[in-house]
């Protein structure tokens, strides 16, 4: 086995991950900005008017990516929190902490944009149906995770407590996803399934471009935040003084 083999485990240490994250941030932030502009252009200037909903359907270009990001990021946060707890890997726990505010923001965006779409489409701002209620619970789980962690002074104890909450709460994600199948709901069912693709190509393009933009934005922002968390938690470490000097 070669001694020069790329060792991924090396980057589980904050001392090695910190400079790597700094180099990666622009590689995600710049394409994210480009994709946001491109997605908005396709969504507003290329995608046609919907035959049933008129122009109001254009909210979906940001509503659906935000809703998906809220769920994806929760699962990712729970995985990192679980790995951090099980293997005592402090960088994984820091990643979970760094993901939580971004996930909460995307979940909040999905609820607000859903409400703004619900008013013209259904005639109501809000209904207590399974999809909307379970998404609201997701937002409360994020807020609970952030509040619980910030209420405990010892960082490693806060990581463990947060991991328990994140792992218990992950059961809510499949409930959100399947809620429109399991219960009667005002919310529409899945548009993209294995058997059907019920959307014009330009509409789907706008939505997936903005989904890509949201992913790249999330990665960039999480990398920035995890670097700050590392600086806050490891402020006494000699390596940090060398890196930030």
């Amino acid at each position, binding site marked *: 086995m070669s001694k020069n083999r790329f060792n991924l485990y090396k980057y589980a240490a904050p001392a090695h991950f910190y400079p790597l994250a700094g180099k990666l941030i622009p590689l995600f932030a710049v394409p994210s900005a480009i994709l946001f502009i491109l997605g908005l252009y396709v969504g507003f200037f290329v995608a046609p008017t919907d035959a049933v909903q008129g*122009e109001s359907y254009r909210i979906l270009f940001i509503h659906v990516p935000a809703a998906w990001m809220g769920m994806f990021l929760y699962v990712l946060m729970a995985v990192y929190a679980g790995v951090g707890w099980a293997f005592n890997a402090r960088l994984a726990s820091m990643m979970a902490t760094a993901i939580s505010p971004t996930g909460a923001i995307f979940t909040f965006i999905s609820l607000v944009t859903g409400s703004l779409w619900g008013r013209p489409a259904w005639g109501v701002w809000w209904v207590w149906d399974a999809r909307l209620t379970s998404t609201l619970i997701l937002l409360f789980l994020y807020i609970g995770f952030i509040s619980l962690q910030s209420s405990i002074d010892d960082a490693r104890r806060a990581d463990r407590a947060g991991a328990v909450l994140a792992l218990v709460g992950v059961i809510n994600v499949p409930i959100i996803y399947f809620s429109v199948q399991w219960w009667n709901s005002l919310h529409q069912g899945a548009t993209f399934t294995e058997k059907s693709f019920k959307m014009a190509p330009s509409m789907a393009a706008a939505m997936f471009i903005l989904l890509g933009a949201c992913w790249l934005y999330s990665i960039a922002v999480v990398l920035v935040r995890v670097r700050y968390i590392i*600086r806050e938690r490891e*402020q006494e470490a000699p390596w940090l003084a060398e890196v930030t000097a």
Partner: protein
Amino acid sequence: MGIIRYFATDKYAVYIWGSYSVTFLLLAAEVLMLLNRKRKLTRRGSPQPEARNTRFETSLQEIQ
């Protein structure tokens, strides 16, 4: 920019622009909060030389 004019008069304009405004305001707020955190970290990481001198002078006065 015909489509912009069209959206300004469309009956759904307030919902569409409201959705995109909320989204980008929140994302911008997140970035601004991170910049603020960076500013605090930078300030904390490099204590002012005057502050150290003041502490030193105070302790000298206490000794005297």
